[in-house]
């Protein structure tokens, strides 16, 4: 016999289902009256330091259909690479946002500040990125991925360096479409499948 490890098991995930908006973005489905203040409406307030950008895209299923019901959360540091709550962080950047695919077009838009670089624990520097968490009907456990930027130096990013099939790196890089504007599409399955993370 050995000593007993006193550990609990993480609660299993279940799909967020088709009606996730009721709980997380009530105004999306016309239920805005339920709370005084909806959480995660914008990751930045007026006056945030840095470059304000807009990222547009869609979440495509394995048939190439732009999903109308996907809900996404994003989390990121401010322009200096500091997360909300850290000493010196920009008080105008909460860093957290909830956004959903448009029910008609399937497109989403995230308006935020371009994030700064953040070092790993061992000192290696990561390229600027925004973390995403995607849920919808048919997704049994929330999907983690990251948005990197085409106009940044991504060559030494430790996560991107771990991707064996180099063409797949592209699935994590937002393409510049204009000043302060980017396109970032997410493909759940099939050709061009986005790299999803287990971090």
């Amino acid at each position, binding site marked *: 016999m050995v000593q007993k490890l*006193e*550990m*609990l*098991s*993480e*609660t*299993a*995930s*279940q*799909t*967020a*289902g*088709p*009606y*996730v908006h*009721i*709980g*997380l973005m*009530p105004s999306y*489905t016309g*239920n805005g*009256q*339920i*709370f*005084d203040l909806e*959480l*995660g409406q914008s990751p930045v307030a007026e006056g945030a330091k840095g470059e304000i950008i807009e990222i547009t895209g869609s979440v495509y*299923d*394995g048939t190439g259909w732009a*999903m109308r019901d996907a809900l996404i*959360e994003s*989390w*990121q540091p401010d322009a200096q690479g500091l997360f*909300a*709550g850290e000493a010196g962080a920009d008080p105008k950047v909460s860093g*957290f946002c909830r956004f959903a695919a448009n*029910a008609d077009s399937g497109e989403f838009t995230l308006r935020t500040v371009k994030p700064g670089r953040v070092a*790993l*624990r061992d000192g290696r520097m*990561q390229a600027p990125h925004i*973390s995403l968490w995607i849920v919808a009907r*048919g*997704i*049994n*456990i929330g*999907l*983690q991925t*990251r948005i990197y930027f085409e106009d940044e130096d991504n060559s030494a990013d430790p*996560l991107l360096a*771990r*991707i064996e099939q180099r063409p797949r790196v592209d699935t994590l890089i937002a393409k510049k479409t204009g000043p302060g504007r980017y396109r970032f599409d997410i493909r*759940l*399955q*099939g050709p061009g*499948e986005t*790299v*999803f*993370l*287990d*971090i």
Partner: protein
Amino acid sequence: MMTNSPLIPRNRALHPVPYDPDYKTTMARAPLLPLLSMDSSASEETGPTFGHNQFGALDNNLILNWTRGAAPAVGERILMHGRVVDEFGRGVPHTLVEIWQANAGGRYRHKKDGYLAPLDPNFGGAGRTLTDAEGRYQFLTIRPGAYPWPNRGNDWRPMHIHISVFGHSFGQRLITQMYFEGDPLIPLCPIAATVKNRASLEQLVAPLDMANSKPLDYIAYKFDIVLRGRRQSMFENKPEGM
């Protein structure tokens, strides 16, 4: 707790399989290539925080919050309560818990839900709260009805409440569903059955909790939620191998 230490990697064997033909929608939505596994970084170890000033007094009372206290929702009154803890059993204080659910007839207040059962004019179906200093939370609500859904020929969802939990880091983010003890639809449900580990599925079923039920008012169900923990070594803040 070491605040600057990595999250414990997820044991995905305890989670639902992403691709399951019995739950048809997963077939075109589950990634088929392997996930990229890495030690967590600040992006996963930090996370949003929420303050009490962002919440209203009725936010965790689904019986009254839709009408702002003017009229109660129809249904069997229940108290849903429990603790949010990490894998070491430590309470997760001051973290956001959100729930949403169908009304007593099994109908959601969502523009995409066209089920025959009527909307309850006094029920919105969403609530939220922050855990207390020990990780405890509670909601007053009504028992949601079971309802049919388009999947196989005749599939019904057991009574369930959707729950979203944050923890203190974005990598702990979790959405799950609470089922009710004794519901005969649980073993028939293809969504519940995406969890292949029997103990993990049982962990999603809330027991009736008579001790915390209030006579002549509501009955209680207890649902504890376990989030990922963090490694506890003091040897973390060093480059690999040093």
